[in-house]
């Protein structure tokens, strides 16, 4: 199968005006090839100056994240056939939100610094047991879903908040943070929640859903961030800016059914569109943070009973989910 890989290249050693360019590689690849297979073919048989990271070819080492047709993905998990656009072209670029070193290789120093920031190691409390910690298998199964994260950086590449706010700890590090908060063996959940409850922490996510969509391992970082928020509130971190506004927003909606001045009329999204409704929370939070949040005095809208029911139901569900 003839395809064209349209690769965004960068060579820091070239003269200024020729440092970045787009290069088309036409290659003949087997039908079932991945983008990574095709890139390897290029670098082995066409142009060994094309730099990229890769190793396992099986979506487990986390080396080969890049942007494929505009979205972050693992090269080795992206089947060529599903991606072919007009004229059999596939666009390949380095990940976003991270400085490029060369071609598809980005500098992940900041990524790892942020992982370090969340104190990513188990901190048990009390003396170690002689044998293993006793822990429910369900809790461990749940953790496996999070620690399936291969630290590829795809979520960070496409996170909309990181684009504008470099201080945001970001989806991967917060998912990692969640992994410890949710570990029954860890004795420092509350300290951790305090640590993540700061500017740049769990309240900065706008719930844009990008990280969930691009994560190749189903880690769903955004969901983990939401779980951390719930736990932070439960743990009593209601004094912080984020939590305060989230609460205000929630109680406002619960009370009156709208947050007037912001035109976030619940009706707009359909009274029963719960995900969308809850999805508005962060917007209010950010607005509040920037002091754009208007005072919350207004009359209850029609159908307020329905809104309240939805809220209570959502609360119950979340409690049940947390066990």
């Amino acid at each position, binding site marked *: 199968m003839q395809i064209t890989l349209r690769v965004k290249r960068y060579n820091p050693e070239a003269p200024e005006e020729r440092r970045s360019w787009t290069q088309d590689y036409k290659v003949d690849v087997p039908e079932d090839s991945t983008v990574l297979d095709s890139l390897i073919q290029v670098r082995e048989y066409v142009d060994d100056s094309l730099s990229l990271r890769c190793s396992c070819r099986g979506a487990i080492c986390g080396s080969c994240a890049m942007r494929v047709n505009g979205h972050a993905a693992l090269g080795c998990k992206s089947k060529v056939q599903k991606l072919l656009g007009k004229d059999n072209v596939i666009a390949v670029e380095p990940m976003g939100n991270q400085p490029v070193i060369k071609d598809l290789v980005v500098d992940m120093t900041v990524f790892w610094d942020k992982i370090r920031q969340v104190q990513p190691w*188990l901190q048990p409390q009390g003396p170690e047991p002689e044998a293993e910690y006793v822990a429910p298998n369900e809790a*461990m199964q749940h953790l496996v879903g999070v620690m399936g994260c*291969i630290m590829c950086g795809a979520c960070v590449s496409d996170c909309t908040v990181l684009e504008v706010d470099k201080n945001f700890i970001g989806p991967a590090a917060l998912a990692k943070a969640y992994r410890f908060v949710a570990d029954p063996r860890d004795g420092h959940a509350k300290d951790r929640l305090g640590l993540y409850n700061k500017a740049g922490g769990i309240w900065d996510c706008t719930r844009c859903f990008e990280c969930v969509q691009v994560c190749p391992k189903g880690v769903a970082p955004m969901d983990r961030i939401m779980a951390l928020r719930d736990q932070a509130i439960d743990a009593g971190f209601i004094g912080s800016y984020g939590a305060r506004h989230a609460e205000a927003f929630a109680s406002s909606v619960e009370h009156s059914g709208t947050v007037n001045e912001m035109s976030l009329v619940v009706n707009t999204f359909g009274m029963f569109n719960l995900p969308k409704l809850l999805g508005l929370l962060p917007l209010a939070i950010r607005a509040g943070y920037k002091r754009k949040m208007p005072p919350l005095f207004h009359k209850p809208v029609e159908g307020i009973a329905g809104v309240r029911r939805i809220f209570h139901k959502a609360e119950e569900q979340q409690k049940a989910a947390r066990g």
Partner: protein
Amino acid sequence: MLQHDVLVVGAGLAGMRAALAAKQAGANVAIISKVTPVRSHSNAAQGGINAALTDRGDDWKEHAYETVKGSDYLGDQDAIEILSQDAGRAVIELEHMGVVFSRGPDGLLGTRRFGGQQRARTFFVADITGQAMLHVLFEQLLKSGITLYEEWFVTSLVMEDGQCRGVVALEIKSGKLELITSPAVVLATGGCGRIYEPSTNGLIVTGDGMALAYKAGAPLMDMEMVQYHPTTLKQNGILITEAARGEGGYLLNGKGERFMDKYAPSMKELASRDVVSRSEQTEINEGRGVNGCVLLDLRHLGRQVIETKLAYINEVALDYLGISLAEAPIPIRPGMHYMMGGIKTDVHGATRVPGLYAAGETACVSVHGANRLGANSLLDTVVFGRRAGDASAAYAKERGHKNVSEAFVADEEARIKGILARSTDGDSVAKIRLEMGQVMNDNISVFRHEEGMKKAQTTIRRLKERYARVGVQNKGKVFNTGLIFSLELGYMLDVAETIAAGALARKESRGAHARVDMPDRDDANFLKHALVFRTESGPRIDWLPVTMTQWQPQKRVY
């Protein structure tokens, strides 16, 4: 010049465990890795880690015996005793560090069955055990504050007066060569799977440490013992874990028969890997395969088991074959997987070169002998990684630092300049690697014979000559992966030559070394390790007796 007490080369499981131990022993430790630690190939381990926990009624002696039997009696029994006796402690330690091992209904660690063993003693994290362990050891590394040279590539060992005094390494991002000195160096560079095409191993698994040690004068041992795993994907060599059979999966031939009944009536699909791979290959060779494969059938396990305990391989099957394991059997075949052989060490990780230690897949202690049991390798990395860390720290303390000449860096700079100066007309690193991979896979694989192995040997020699002339297109400094591949190919060709030499020297069949022209095990003449030394005229073989403690060789039936 950078200086440390202990320098660990490699940040896979063995390397990180060694570094943590050396640090705990009070040494100033650094760890150097050509990839970010969590990219190391240990992350690909799926199935689990073995340990006989006494509080579960298991017995380390059973584990040890089955390991000895699995090794076709080539494993050193003193080392195997250490491995199985220390296993329980090692697994509990990992659990305490944070590994989220699967548990039973009682909240205690659960086990699954693995090949070559009667009991279920394999502890696991779904089918991503290696990843789970690797990430946790990395967490511990971050916590420890050990210096990390990340994406640095070791190009040579610094040898003075017959001692190893450090390394010269290339910082990949800048292209700069640096001297790092240390009285003790631990090689934990993993296997050499890419010598073969295809292989279950990642593209970074290129035998660097084996080649470095060999060049420095340390012998390699039992290099002919190359494991072919029974269940790999034809298309790209990716592994389907033995846990698939451990959880109850069947192997079927083209006629739909569970053919393992014939070859291993009692253990069936869970016989030793060499046995299962040979059985599959026989079915395929005798015309009972399906397009060069046999089938792995997991349908009867049900969705629930597949989606929780075997989720990763299900993802692999979906991604690369478009098949859900719950719905259809998948074609698989034996594929190159693991090196039982490696740098010869004692039970403290010491090689025969003072100041040079080794652990993990790159080393040969030897606990795997002629055939490794599944789930014994992860155990090997943490048990012997820790021991190498302890021993190297003690050695460094005793010896102290010596000044090393910067001339070592100049030599390496000149060598690399030489590679970059060569032309690429016609030939390429990739072509040479592919030819090497194919000739090895065709001739030193599941079944072997004299003629084929000789062919491999002469081909490798020819390829080495071509290698000496081939250049790379990329002449830059920053992240020059073309240059790295060239250096890796150099390592692989050296190691491939030792594999061929060992294979030709062993005139019998034992474990993974199955010769059709000499089908019997010959304990009278070959119950011994093959040591390979480097000489100007090529590899030289020497022999070393196997250490036996409690178990005398017996006929191996499963």
